[in-house]
């Protein structure tokens, strides 16, 4: 009780919200039950476990970042947790050479194209799957999903020949279209999950109010599944950005992705480890930016809208 009195007096002095909550919780502190203490222990164990996991998770990335600020002589001369002779030379090399930084531009271009195409075609299809029954709908859905499961290695050579024969080889759109193979089915799947969460009555009310289908879809429905669209775009970005096998096969010079350019660090005189590390670090940054923007919706998105 002795603990209680000064607290109440303090709230009287300044009636701020923080102090009020403080007085409410403070008197409870000494009377923790056994179960509550146990729960608190569990929370702490969880935090420690998570911290350990995150440290292990980030260590390889830290090592890469660390290395990107070192010179090659320093990298090969021994291990150290911090660069002894801090240098930006590796990054300067990348930003000073068009054949290097164009790799990032190329990757960005085909990833954005893929995101736009995937969303444009997947939105109406997902609506159809979530609202209507039609001949062959289940088979169609399964066929779409089976493409998500198709190993890119299987399609490597046919893709090369197909895009060469239609004159799209070494263009950004070729890679964007090829990535549609796995991104469109995924987009349909995620969007279908989000759309099924929107009650049918909304559609019906809109039609009664005289909305045409396109107008309803753009004006009412799309704003309702905004977060779903954000999450879908995130996933399209993710899978297109990380894929290299198809992107490398379908390009040679003009649309070459950064992943393929990175192999240039291997030369007769050995590996240019510092440059390789710097190029690697730069490929991680876009991903972090994108996940930052969707962080509040990404949890639901990871369950593909199905929780």
């Amino acid at each position: 009780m002795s603990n209680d009195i000064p607290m109440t007096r303090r709230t009287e002095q300044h009636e701020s919200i923080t102090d009020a909550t403080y007085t409410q919780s403070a008197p409870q502190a000494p009377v923790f039950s056994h179960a509550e203490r146990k729960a608190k222990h569990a929370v702490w164990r969880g935090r420690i476990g998570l911290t350990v996991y995150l440290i292990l998770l980030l260590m390889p990335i830290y090592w890469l970042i660390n290395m990107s600020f070192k010179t090659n002589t320093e990298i090969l001369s021994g291990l150290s947790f911090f660069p002894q002779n801090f240098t930006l030379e590796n990054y300067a090399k990348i930003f000073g050479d068009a054949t290097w930084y164009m790799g990032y531009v190329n990757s960005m271009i085909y990833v954005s194209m893929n995101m736009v195409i995937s969303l444009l075609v997947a939105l109406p299809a997902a609506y159809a799957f979530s609202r209507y029954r039609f001949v062959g709908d289940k088979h169609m859905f399964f066929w779409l999903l089976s493409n998500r499961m198709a190993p890119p290695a299987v399609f490597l050579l046919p893709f090369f020949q197909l895009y060469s024969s239609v004159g799209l080889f070494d263009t950004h759109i070729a890679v964007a279209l090829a990535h549609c193979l796995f991104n469109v089915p995924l987009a349909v799947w995620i969007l279908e999950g989000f759309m099924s969460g929107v009650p049918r009555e909304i559609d019906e009310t809109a039609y009664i109010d005289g909305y045409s289908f396109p107008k309803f879809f753009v004006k009412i429905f799309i704003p309702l599944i905004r977060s779903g669209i954000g999450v879908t775009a995130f996933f399209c970005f993710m899978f297109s950005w990380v894929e290299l096998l198809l992107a490398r096969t379908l390009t040679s010079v003009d649309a070459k992705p950064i992943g393929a350019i990175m192999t240039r660090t291997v030369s007769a005189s050995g590996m240019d480890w510092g440059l390789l590390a710097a190029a690697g670090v730069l490929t991680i940054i876009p991903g972090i930016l994108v996940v930052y923007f969707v962080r509040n919706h990404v949890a639901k998105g990871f369950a593909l809208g199905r929780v």
Partner: protein
Amino acid sequence: MTKVENNKAWWLVMPVFLIVAFSAIIPLMTVVNYSVQDIFDPYTRYFVGTEWFKQVMTDSRLHDALIRQFIFSFTILAIEIPLGIGVALMMPTKGRGASLALILVAIPLLIPWNVVGTIWQIFGRADIGLFGAMMAKLGINYNYASEPMHAWLTVVLMDVWHWTPLVALLCYSGLRAIPEVYYQAARIDKASRWAVFRYIQLPKLTNVLIIGVLLRFMDSFMIYTEPFVLTGGGPGTSTTFLSQSLVQQAIGQFDLGPAAAFSLVYFLIILLVCWVFYTTIMNMQKDK
């Protein structure tokens, strides 16, 4: 939700059908075409029927790659699923910490696969990498480029590092969907931590776990870039998985016929497993 019968919905699905058909059906037909022909050059080719399929079925290199593939897929599933659940249970549920943990955990998923290979190529080397150096300190002559066991360890470790976050985030989203009342009821019943997990959290996680197992199985079955960068399939063929032996055959040796037959068999295996999972998911949703 009851759905309305309407065949006009096909018009909405049409764009998706066309775009995926362009990228899927035409190339698949090319593969089928190759698989039954012997091709010398673009103008000389012979129909050989099922010969390539017979050859693929009896090719011991492919059998070995298939066995390695299954061992690899099951190993990483056995590690990643429990670990992912564990991480999801430890992640904070609200506030700034939750967002931060979410972003940090998601990072490995957004790294291009060849860079993942590069990261571990560096990290596992005894001369310039932390992990390799630590193993060396422990008195193990760690070298993933010459010791098959070390190569396996590194590849598995890399995959666990790379993909456990996916399982963790899936489970995290599953856990977020459990209403607070369930936990309150458990507290009133004085349920133990284990009982809460076993009877409240795990049943609610089934759905997302199926998606997780499905995605992880499929993706690990197609793994190519990471081991290619890390070990190049070596030492010898000890970490050569299906995709890589396929690419070696198709592009390295230019054996189009056998490679195409192999592709089809490979695709059918994946399709079969995919169908089993898909049917299971659909039946479970029906039960609810």
